[in-house]
Every structure is written in C-alpha cells, then in structure tokens.
C-alpha cells in the first residue's frame, strides 16, 4: 500500500505540459519562422527579437486561452468530484443538478439588465458584475436543489437531478426571453455564454480564476479523506473526527464560487465534472484521496484538448466547446446510468 499519488500527479502534469506546448503551436495563424519556444522565451525576457505579430499571437491570444482552458477545466472537474463526494452519487455534478444553469441564468440577467446598475456603481466593479451574478445564481441553485432533495438526514439524488432539470428549463426560458430584450452587443455576449467558449480569455480573467482556484483548492483538495469516510455514512464519518456539516456547507459554497466564476468567464461548458471523475473512478475505484487531486489536473487536460480541437477542426471557424464536451459527456452519462441503475 505505497502512496502513489505523487507519481500519478507528476505523470499527469507532464501530460498537461506537453499538451499545452502542442496547443500553443496549433491554430490558424502560422508563425513566420520562429518556433513557439523561441517566441515564448522572447516574451518572457522581453528582448523583442521575434516579429511583433508572433509575439502578440502567443502572448495575448493563445497563451491566455491555454491558461484559461487549464484553469476552467480544473475548476469544473474538481467541483464535480466534490459534489459527487458529499452527495455520494456519481451523477451529482454541477451541470446535472442545475448549478451551471443557475449561474448562466443570472449571468444572462446581469448582462441584459445590468446596464442600469452599471451607471451607479464604480467602474472597477463593472467587470466583476457578471461574475457576482453567476456566483449568486450558482449558490441560489445549489441551495434550492439541496433543500428540495434533503430530508431526514438523507439526500435523494433522483429528486436532485429532477430539480436540476427544472432549474435548467427555467434557465433556458429566461435566457431565451433575455435574447429578445437584449441589444445587439449583448446578444453576442448571450450566445457566447450559452454555448460556452474560451475565446474571451484575457490575463485579467485568468488572474481572477487563479485566485478563486487557489483559494478554494487550499481547503477542498485535501478533503479526500473526509469524502471517503462519508461513504460509510455521515454519522460514522463524524465518529472518525470529521466535521461533516461544516465540510458539506463549505463545499457547497466553494463549488458555487468555482462554477459561478467559470461560467462568468467561459459560459456554460458542460459535462467536465461528470467525465473526469468517471474515468478516474474506473482507474482508481472511488478513493477520493487520489481522484480529488488528480481530477484537478485531468480536468485541465480534458478541456485544453477539447479547446484545441474546437479551434482547429473547422478552421478558420471555431466550434463552440460545449458541443465537444457534450459529445463526450452524454455517453458517459449513459454509462453511469447503466452501471448504477440498481442503486438509484
């Protein structure tokens, strides 16, 4: 029973690194002569030895986008793993129980109706208005779903999923309604949010995502033991010295924060939180001390790979990334249903 986590993590990081290099290289724009490595080196040292266009493409377009794919993918996978852990079901992911829809819904409302609010608040907050809206939407959705589905110390997962369907329908209707109220530029924003895209990546957004990620991970990523123990039952986890109620409350709050931020910057990208834990469970059974940290890296790998494909497969056009994740996610959803139908 040796601890293999450091080895697995290292191997996963290497895969991610190689993939990031490949992804930087791929795209519609062809570099004149210099390689991706040379350009990156030149940007970092600031010597201006490479053509300005090349430096711009890498430093301002591809690099931020690669970093955002890594951050968003990681955040989505970890939030999925955490929710599955506290609700003890592999289908309890942010998109299926309506958390993503809640965030999208509030983001849409903030985009369209935020205009009037925008005039009275300081400019620094304009940027984070949509993030705040998305976070509140996510938090509202998860609280609502949890309240509806819980009773007598148990959480009914079927009720949770159905509540998710209800919230998604509401979101769909209200986002549809918003498109009729929206002006042209807002309409573009709305479409972007609904389908999900990493096209809007900037270093500022990445900074905010990184802060959210570091803040929430510093608490969540070490909770593998607690999630394992909760498989015994919540009372029995408490006998093992685990503060079950506190962990559940903070996990719900942090998941809402993570999903809210991810949706605010990249729209609703589905299924990452379903696919990654599923694959990791096949490899490592349900040991959360392994799959929780590993999902942070593999979520990044999945979304980076999907984004690289989405912007090269139909070049010079771009496929919304949500299409790709759904193509992968729907079969996984089916597989989980078949495997767990007895215990539902």
């Amino acid at each position: 029973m040796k601890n293999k986590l450091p080895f697995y993590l290292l191997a996963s990081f290497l895969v991610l690194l190689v993939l990031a290099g490949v992804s930087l290289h791929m795209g519609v724009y062809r570099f004149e002569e210099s390689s991706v490595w040379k350009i990156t080196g030149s940007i970092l040292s600031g010597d201006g030895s490479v053509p300005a266009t090349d430096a711009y493409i890498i430093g301002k377009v591809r690099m931020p986008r690669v970093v955002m794919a890594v951050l968003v993918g990681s955040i989505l996978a970890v939030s999925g793993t955490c929710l599955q852990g506290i609700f003890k079901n592999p289908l309890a992911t942010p998109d299926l129980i309506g958390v993503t829809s809640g965030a999208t819904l509030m983001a849409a409302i903030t985009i369209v109706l935020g205009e009037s609010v925008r005039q009275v608040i300081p400019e620094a907050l304009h940027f984070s208005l949509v993030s705040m809206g998305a976070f509140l939407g996510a938090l509202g959705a998860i609280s609502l779903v949890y309240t509806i589905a819980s009773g007598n110390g148990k959480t009914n997962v079927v009720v949770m999923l159905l509540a998710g369907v209800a919230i998604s329908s509401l979101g769909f209707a209200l986002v549809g309604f918003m498109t009729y109220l929206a002006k042209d530029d807002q309409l573009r924003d709305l479409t972007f949010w609904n389908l999900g895209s990493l096209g809007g990546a900037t270093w500022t957004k990445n900074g905010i995502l990184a802060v959210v990620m570091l803040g929430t991970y510093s608490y969540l990523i070490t909770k593998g033991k607690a999630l394992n123990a909760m498989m015994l039952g919540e009372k029995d986890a408490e006998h093992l010295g685990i503060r079950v109620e506190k962990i559940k409350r903070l996990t719900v709050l942090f998941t809402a924060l993570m999903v809210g931020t991810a949706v605010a910057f990249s729209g609703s990208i589905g299924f990452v939180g379903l696919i990654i834990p599923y694959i990791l469970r096949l490899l490592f059974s349900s040991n959360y001390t392994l799959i929780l940290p590993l999902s942070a890296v593999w979520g990044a790998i999945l979304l980076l790979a999907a984004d690289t494909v989405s912007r090269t497969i139909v070049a010079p056009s771009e496929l919304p990334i949500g299409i790709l994740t759904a193509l992968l996610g729907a079969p996984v959803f089916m597989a989980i249903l078949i495997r767990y139908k007895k215990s539902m």
Partner: protein
Amino acid sequence: MVKGHKISYSHKSYSILKGVDVSVEYGEMLVIVGPNGAGKSTLLNVLANELSRNTDDIYFKQKRFREWDILDLSKNKAKFSQHYNSDIPLPVQDVVLMGRYPYFDSIPQRSDLAAVEEVMKETGVWDLKEREYNSLSGGEKQRVHLARVMAQLKNEVAHKLVLLDEPLNNLDVKHQHQVLELMADFARRGNTVITVLHDLNLAARFATRVLMMKNGRVLAQGAPGEVLTAEVISEAYGFPCRIWIHPAHHHPVILFGN
C-alpha cells in the same frame, strides 16, 4: 468513564427512552439486551453522541460531549454501527485504513499501516486485503468494519470506549466467539466496551455486566448471574425459559421454551 443520568429520548412525540440511568467504569464490558423495540440501539446512539440533542446528561471521562474536541474524541471513542452503506467501491484495506484518518493528514504513516495490518490479522480479514469491499459477504463486511473500528482505537490513550451495535449479525459461531473474545480482551486492558447483543447466552458468557431493557426503561442491571434469571427474562421477552449453570465457566445458560 461514561455516566448518563435519566436519559430520555423521543421521536415525533413517541418516547423511546424513559429516564435511563447508566454508568460504566474502566475495564467493564456492558452488554445491553432486551426484546425488539426496547430502545437498545437508541441508548447506544445516545451514549455514542450520535443524537446531538439530549446529550447534556451524559458525561464521558467527566466531560460533556460538546466540551470535547471532535478529533480528540475520535481517539478516545469509536462506534460500530448496525447498518453500513453496502456500496463502498474501495479495496478492503482502504476501508480499514479509514480508522486511521484521525491520525494522519494526507499520507498514512508507517505506524498507521502497521496498526491496520495488526487489527486485520486479529479480526481475520488480512487475507481479504486486496479484495473489493463490495464483493464481500455480509459477515466479511461486518468484520472489515470491526477491524476499522479497532484500528481507530490503536493508540496510547489510557482508557478508551468502544460501542457496538449488534456486531455479531451475519457471523458464524467461530467468528462470534472470536469477536467477543477480542472485545473482552480489549476491556481487560482498562478500556470499556458497550455492546448490544441478541444472544443471551453469549451475553452471559462474555459480559461483566448486563443491562436488560424493556419499553425504554431498564428492567434489570448487574452481573450476568443476577440479571439473567428465569423471572427477569420471562418478564422482558414474554416467553418462558429455564436456566442452567455452565459446568466449566459457571455462568447461566438459558434454554428457551417450556
């Protein structure tokens, strides 16, 4: 060790425990017996701090439960529950390792792995260590959880408490005796065992004290020879029985029926 004065508990206006007094000392093995619905499990849950209200009357090592640090408490007291989630997709070894969670942060120490191995050998589940927990039989699962509970209490703390709710379910005769021997031995080392059992003969054989419950009250409490008499048993269960004395161990042997 554990003292509870006039413990009462009710669920939706239905009163399950009606003023139960319990006091258990170091080195004792208290066996709670009684007919179905007597409140045995509820009493055990109250003593285990599972029902967060109504625990103010209970003192564990002279302190109320809410005065304890939860991690410290987990090194002093462990509980074996009657019903466990049957779906834990982990290898057996990882389930037993959960008992060591209070002792390490993210990577189990050598001492943790040693404790796991020791208790798994004691409970006879070491051969199952690589097996998937979900593939085990009911009795094997039961022993895995027992190993986990004992792993939790492998430490230097002087007086520990273990609570067991019908630990013998699904076990064959040999394992029933093995488990109770293990518990009696644990008690002899200055610890306390409180367990709910159905089998009165096993209670007579292993208990240092027996607590007979009926309708949420204590019907009788004391040494096995004092409590397990024909009168008390017939009153509790409403079923006739005869008492013999075990020729070798001199404890009561109960034969049910006329």
